[in-house]
């Protein structure tokens, strides 16, 4: 549409876009590459993308299972005629062999063993899904009432929804935190979930969608003797699946990636950490040699959404840019 249609022009455009793509991909490349390489390769910047994958000895693992006096005594009968010193060396050799692994195994096994990463991932799933389900539970009936039922005060309620769209929840974190602290709810799942249970955006979105549903459908359901309650869940909900799916993606991506709010309300209890908090804590604890495992953790946290996105790009782009429909 814009620009010349010559091959040269086309090639130039590709060149610019490829340069941009390289910058965009750079950190992903670094993250995955570091998660595969050994500490030495990371420090010296060698080994290309995947590194040499030369077996490496995990010194910490060796230290932990260093043969003690008891182990040496137990191994004595097998090595008759050798001194304790020699037996220890033999055993140590065996431990070192057991603690030898390729860098990629080292990085990823450390990611899961140094911190309870699986638990963090599970917390992430629990929190994001709970938030989404409660959001729908609250928003759907409200949106239905605003779109399809006539009642005194409807305009006021809708005006309030529009006003609340202006308030970014992160911005009011401090008063919310105080309220939760006064209720003794900090460091609970509730603290992670409750502030997000009301999505005024979800209400607005579903209302707009319900406006397009023909009244005849609802009247027919009423004729069949359905209550308003079952109309919401058995008639309106099924018609709204595409909109709900987009909203689900919007909500899950936002809360899986959210770092600020968990940081505020989860202060001590590591059992409640969400994935980003776990990664951040890893960074705080890490010493120099732990870049690999840390990047492995980052990869594990970032990958699920990236893969989901690559599989269902159109839906994801729709969902994430939902805010564009306002």
């Amino acid at each position, binding site marked *: 549409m*814009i620009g010349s249609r010559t091959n040269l022009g086309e090639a130039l455009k590709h060149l610019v876009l490829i340069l941009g793509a390289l910058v965009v991909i750079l950190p992903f490349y670094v993250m995955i590459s570091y998660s595969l390489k050994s500490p030495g390769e990371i420090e010296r910047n060698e080994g290309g993308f995947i590194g040499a994958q030369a077996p490496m000895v995990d010194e910490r693992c060796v230290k932990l299972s260093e043969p003690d006096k008891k182990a040496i005594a137990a191994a004595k009968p097998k090595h008759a005629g050798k001194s304790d010193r020699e037996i220890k060396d033999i055993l140590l050799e065996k431990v070192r062999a057991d603690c030898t692994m390729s860098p990629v195994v080292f990085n990823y096994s450390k990611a899961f063993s140094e911190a309870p990463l699986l638990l963090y991932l599970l917390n992430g799933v629990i929190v994001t899904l709970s938030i989404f389900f409660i959001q729908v539970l609250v928003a759907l009936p409200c949106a239905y009432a605003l779109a399809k039922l006539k009642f005194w005060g409807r305009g006021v309620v809708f005006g309030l929804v529009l006003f609340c769209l202006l308030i970014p929840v992160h911005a009011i974190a401090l008063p919310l935190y105080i309220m939760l602290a006064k209720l003794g709810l900090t460091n609970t799942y509730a603290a992670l979930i409750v502030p997000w249970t009301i999505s*005024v955006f979800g209400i607005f979105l579903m209302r707009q969608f319900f406006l397009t549903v023909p009244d005849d459908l609802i009247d027919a359901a009423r004729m069949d003797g359905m209550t308003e309650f079952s109309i919401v869940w058995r008639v309106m909900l099924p018609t709204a699946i595409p909109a709900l799916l987009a909203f689900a993606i919007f909500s899950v991506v936002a809360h899986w990636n959210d770092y600020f709010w968990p940081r505020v309300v989860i202060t001590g209890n590591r059992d409640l950490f969400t994935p980003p908090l776990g990664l951040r804590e890893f960074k705080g604890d890490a010493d120099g040699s732990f870049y690999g495992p840390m990047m492995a953790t980052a990869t594990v946290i970032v990958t699920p959404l990236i893969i989901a996105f690559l599989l269902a790009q159109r839906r994801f782009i729709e969902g994430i840019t939902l805010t564009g429909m306002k």
Partner: protein
Amino acid sequence: MATPARGRMIPYAFVAPALVLMFVILLAPVIVAVVLSFTDYGLGNTSVSWVGWDNYEKIFKHSRYEKMMIATLLYVGVVVPVSLGLGLGAALLIKSLRWGGDLYKTIYFLPVMAALLAMAIVWEFTLNPTIGIVNKTLASYCDVQWLRAWPWFDQGCRDTFPLWLGEKEYALWTLCFIGIWQAFGFNMVLYLAGLTSIPRELYHAAEMDGAKSAWDRFRLVTWPMLGPTTVFVVTITAIRSFQVFDTVEAIFPDSGGPAKSAYVMMFVIYEKGIKQNLIGFGAAVTVLFLLFVLALTLIQHRMVERRTHYA
């Protein structure tokens, strides 16, 4: 509906949960923040006293909060126009390609999906002055003579390349870069949607009226027709960049950047209000923050209204 009386109550039953939560979770905290901003409240304190405008005075008098305002506004002022420009540029280029556009779209959208905290940590490694790939790569080009003609590059080769996040001249700009890296794909997608909705006849009409060059077509058709998208992109990017926190906290957890150069508002709210329990002061920053957001939204509404009158 069993009885008319019960039937009349049903809508209220449907909106009640949402209404209650809206009041408790969204509206009450705003009021609480405004009230607390005039006090010296702290969690666990036995007494609270009314301090009037003291907290606000502190914000406007202390030099560190002057730095906060500068850092926040500079961050927003850089990230919004640059990520808008890049998003629009990418959208125009992709739209005009004969093939391969979808691939670029996918790649550029990746940062939007990735947890910003994780990517901030990765960028910190990438830009690390000793082991980072960026400075290593720059240093490996020091033999290239024609690049040495660039004074900045020559300086880097003879001395050291910038520490990026480690020096105050570069830290905030580097954070802006990460913010732009993350945001522009989102803007690109909005612009792609906007471009699709421009009727082709407008371009033909413009051409007949003498708009020959690509620039003329852009100036006379594309840009005006993208007006609503632009207003929206500016508002949403501005509100999001005002809330920048993850990158600052991940990279400068204790300081807010070298010489407080990246001491942004959300970080201050977190540091003062939550870590140091100076809730009254944190509340004052919160109120100021909400005023910024309100102002932005009002400006957006004005722009949208003007557009509709114009059209």
